[in-house]
Structures are given as C-alpha cells and as structure tokens.
C-alpha cells in the first residue's frame, strides 16, 4: 500500500532530477562567462594603476575621483547623452508612423515591408556605418547631391561630428523602436478605434485619445532600447565620429586598447553604465505616470 503511494512521488522527483541536466550547460555558460565577468569590471575599476603590468597591487578609488573631476570626460559624457536622447526622439518620430502603418496594413506587400524593417537590423553594423560614410563624407553622395542642385558651393561637414553620428545611429537603431511598437499596436483591438469613431470622434481625436495612450508600453520599451543602444554604441561613433563626435564607448575602448589603462577604463565603463541606469530609472518613473491607467 505504501509502495503504491510512494511510487508517483519517487517518479516525480526523478523526473525533475533527470531534467536538471538540460539547463546546466546554459547556466555554466551564463554564470561562468557572463555574470562573473561583470564582477571583474567592478574589481578592475578599483585596482591601482601600473606602468609595468595591467594593474598594480592594492585597491583605490582614484580612477573614479580623477574621471569625475575631469571636464573633458564630463563633456564627452554630456555629448554621449545628448546624442542618445536625440537619436531616441527622432527614432520615435520616424518609427511610430511606420509601426502604425504596418500594424494597419493588410495588403500583400506587408511581408515585404516587414523585411524592409528587419533587414537593416540584420545587416552588420560596420556595413551600415560604412554606407553612411559614403553618404556623409565631404565628397559623399549627400554633398554631391546638394552641390548638383546648387544649394551649396562648398561641402558641408556632415561627419566627424555629432551630426553624422546622430544620423547614422538613428538609421541603425530605428528597427528597434518599430518592432516593439508594432507588437503593441497590433495588440490593440481595431474595435476600439471604431467605437471611438461611432461615438463621434474624428480620426485625429481617436488617435490622440485612444490609440496613443494605449501604445505607451510600446513607446516606453522602444525608447529605452534605442537610448541604451545608442549611448553604448561603439562602431558608429568610432567610424563616423572623429574627434568631434567621440562618445564614452570610444573613449573607454581607447583607454583599454590604445592606452592600456584597464583600471581607469573600467571606472569609465562603470560611470557610463551608472549614468544610463539613472537616466532609464528616471524615465521609467516619468512614463509610469502616463501608463498608470493601463491594464
């Protein structure tokens, strides 16, 4: 009797026991080569600098105090955040109409349009940034076109500054705001817009009062994604930014690779991450107010 009762329990336990191995390789990978490495950024940032080795003996907060007292670094941090914010706002303004259009579209071209949105995401960053170099350089396609139309006589400085980085990053990260918005907009029942119209609201009023408030979660997710991606981007500012468009990521890599100042570079990376966390936190609190009524 007791054996019969015990049997299912034993089987249940052995099932779970035999299943655990399935997740072990992944956990080993992500703890051993993801979680632990992140801890070493913190320890590295507290190491003494050394001219003879990667770091010296003992620990110090000097890298933080030096960085935070350096106006040059503050300037680059400010520029990085400004570029990030600009890219985010422009991406939202350009991405929303595309997501809205794609969510409503029921033509047979929808699938092709979806490929148009996705493909820039899957084409490598270096390739896409290279394309923008062709467009934005002094002899580039944009300046050629402007000269041909007689608008300018001398080429405009479109790259090696924040402007070029902002334009290229907007292109690079636009899909990242379109896709969450698209998911969000598709989940809103078309009946709601029809209900609004039946109650006498125009299409504009319907958009402002019904569709836009209900798409706030998509806006929030997409803008955070684009902001974090653009302030941490390396390839685009490194290729297009020159010195005039240098951002925190470029500076950190310069510390690590060119100057071999690992502890100081680690401190800069942590400062960058901390600033990002603070900004995203503030943004979440702000947008939470706009979303408090949503289910």
């Amino acid at each position, binding site marked *: 009797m007791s054996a019969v009762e015990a049997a299912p329990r034993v089987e249940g336990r052995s099932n779970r026991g035999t299943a655990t191995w399935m997740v072990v390789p992944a956990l080993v990978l992500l703890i051993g080569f993801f979680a632990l490495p992140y801890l070493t950024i913190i320890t590295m940032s507290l190491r003494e600098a050394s001219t003879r080795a990667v770091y010296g003996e003992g620990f110090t907060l000097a890298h933080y105090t030096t960085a935070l007292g350096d106006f040059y670094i503050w300037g680059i941090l400010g520029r990085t955040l400004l570029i990030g914010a600009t890219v985010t706002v422009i991406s939202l303004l350009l991405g929303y109409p595309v997501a809205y259009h794609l969510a409503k579209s029921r033509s047979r071209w929808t699938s092709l349009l979806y490929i148009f949105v996705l493909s820039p995401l899957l084409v490598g960053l270096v390739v896409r940034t290279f394309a923008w170099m062709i467009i934005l350089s002094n002899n580039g396609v944009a300046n050629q076109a402007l000269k041909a139309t007689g608008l300018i006589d001398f080429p405009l400085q479109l790259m090696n500054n924040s402007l070029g980085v902002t334009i290229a990053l907007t292109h690079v990260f636009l899909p990242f705001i379109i896709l969450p918005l698209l998911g969000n907009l598709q989940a809103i*029942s078309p*009946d*709601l817009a*029809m*209900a*609004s*119209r*039946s*109650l*006498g*609201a*125009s299409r504009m*009023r319907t958009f402002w*009062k*019904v569709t836009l*408030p*209900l798409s706030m979660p998509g806006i929030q997710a997409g803008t955070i994604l684009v902001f974090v991606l653009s302030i941490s981007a390396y390839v685009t500012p490194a290729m297009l930014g020159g010195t005039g468009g240098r951002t925190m990521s470029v500076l950190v890599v310069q510390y690590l690779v060119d100057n071999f100042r690992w502890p100081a570079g680690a401190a800069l990376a942590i400062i960058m991450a901390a600033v990002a966390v603070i900004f995203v936190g503030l943004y979440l609190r702000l947008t939470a107010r706009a979303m408090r*009524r*949503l*289910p």
Partner: protein
Amino acid sequence: MTALTIDRINKRYGNLHILKDISIPIAQGEFVSLLGPSGCGKTTTLRCIAGFERPDSGRILFGVRDVTHALPEQRDIGMVFQSYALFPHMTVAENLSFGLEVRKVSVADRQRRIAEVLAMVRLEGYDKRYPRELSGGQQQRVALARALVIEPSVLLLDEPLANLDATLRDEMRFFIRDLQQRVGITSIYVTHDQAEAMVMSDKIVVMSAGTISQFGSPREIYERPVSQSVAGFIGRSNTISGKIAEALGQDSYKVETPCGSIGTTGPAGLAKGAEVKIMIRPENIRTLRHDAGISRQQRAGEAGHGDNALTGAVVNSIYQGSANQLAVKLGSGDRIVVDVGGRNPLDVGEQVTLRFAARDTWLLAS
C-alpha cells in the same frame, strides 16, 4: 415614418460579391435583426450603416438625410460591439463621457446624463471603475450605456451577446429589448442566433450569401417561411415532398405525396402539378398510439389536428425534460420529428398515427 433606408447597396471585395442589392426599410423605433450564418453579409451591412465600409453602389438614408458618403463620426450612431470595445484606459464614467465631450456637452449636463443612463442600465456607483474590474455582463451594460448616452438616431448592435454565458445571455435579451422599447430608439441587431432574433425583434432580415432571403415579423418568418433554407434556419421543421393535386381555395391546397394525400396551406398562386415541400413544425403534430382505441371524446378534442393523419413507427426517442422528442419513420421512408409533452408513453418500435391540421402546414417551393 422611415427612420433608416437601405437602398439597393452592393459591396464587392475583389471578385467576391459580398452584398447583392440589399434593400431594407426600417421604421422609427423599430428593432430589426439581421440574421444569418457567418459570411452571409450581415456584419458588412451593419458596417456600411455605421460608415466603416462604403457600399460600391446604392444609398443609405437616415430619415431623409443621405449618409452614404458621410464618415462614421458624422452619422450620429451608437454602436455596441461584440468585444464591447470599452476603452481600457478610461473609467466607466470616462467611457460614457467620451461621446458627450466630442459633442461639447457642458460638464453639468454630462454628469446628469451619465448618472441617468447608468441608472438605466442598473450600474449606479460603478462610475469610477475600470472596465477590467467589471464582469462580462456589466461590461456589456456599460457598452450599451456608452452608445445610448449620446442619444443617437440609430443604435447598432453587432452580436453583443455572443461572449456571454447562456444564462446571462437570456437575461440580457430581455434587458436590451426592454431598454430599447423604453428609449424608443431605432435599432439594428446583428446575430446568428435565431432564438435571439425571434424574441427581440419587431422585424427580422434573414440573409444568406449576400442576399435577403426574407424580411418580415418573427411570426411571418416562423410560420410562413419563403424557402426551405429559411425554414431550416429558424426553428426545427419537417418537410415532406409532393405535388399539388388541386387548389382548394386561395391559399389551401391538396398535395399528393408518397404517404397519401395531404391538406395544406401555402402561398397563393401555386399551379397544379407544381413540385412542393410541405413544412410542418414538430410542436404542431399530435402523436397517437396506432393500435389504441381512440374514444369519441378524444376524437372531438383532436378536431383541430384532424385534417391529416399519417402512420409510422417510432425509431428514436429523446428525453428533454419538459418534453420528449420522437423521430417517426413514415411508410414512405420520410423521417418526421415530433414533440410529445409530459411523460412519454411511446416506445421505440411502436406504431403511431401523426395528426396535424392543414392550417399548421406551409408549402415551400421545391
């Protein structure tokens, strides 16, 4: 007075002809149901009336005003959706206020009208709730209130009860009908549920494959269907095929069938020799045990049912609580379904006589 005229509208999607020359006149204060299986065009018709679809040809008039080309928001309609379509980010009061704000109603008037209509749908005190905090039936009533509070000229309802459970659905039928009569608003109701259409409507439009099969009162449609498909769609029915043997009066005929000659009622003008189907509703057939001696008194009582008599054997018997449903196989091979009240004294295999009156039959063109 005609409140709403649908005048020969057509609608095509590519080479699909969704609506073919649909015309429906609707009187002021009438409750009209569009009834039919899915894909018959009833929802497209409603969307044309609402302005979410534009007919390729034909006109839609609200009173004397041609609204065929008007935008939905210019039509002064109230609409209740199957999904309710309550704005999830607004409270009940804000949902109700939405249409009043568009109409620039003053704050004081808004509050008064919202309170009135909430009382009407028995949801006093729910104004601060969000839709997600309400039950399905309550959401349904808010949707109704939101459509009524703007005092529209027409109320459009698109299968509003489809998402409710059976008990609540029955309750809401009477609730909506009662409310509609009290307000006196012209209403168009889309449904695929014939029982719903029967109990709620002044008129029913039976649709199939983009055309109107029949337009009439529930009684007309139930008792005088124009075709076998209408008869089959509304309620249960039996049919027996035959040929007209002779016309007995303007609307009564003698029909020759494999089971013998049957006295029937039918539309005027059927020619002798025409192929017809005799429709008889199960509840209009009296079943008697074949071998039992039938007393004179009983016979007298059966006088109304006495016009016709067919014999057959019980092949199936289903107990349904309030009644029994019997299937009887006639000598001709036709299967006839009949209702037998009370305790069922008949067993499968027993020989029975089926009696029904000529006035309870209706002829359908074959």
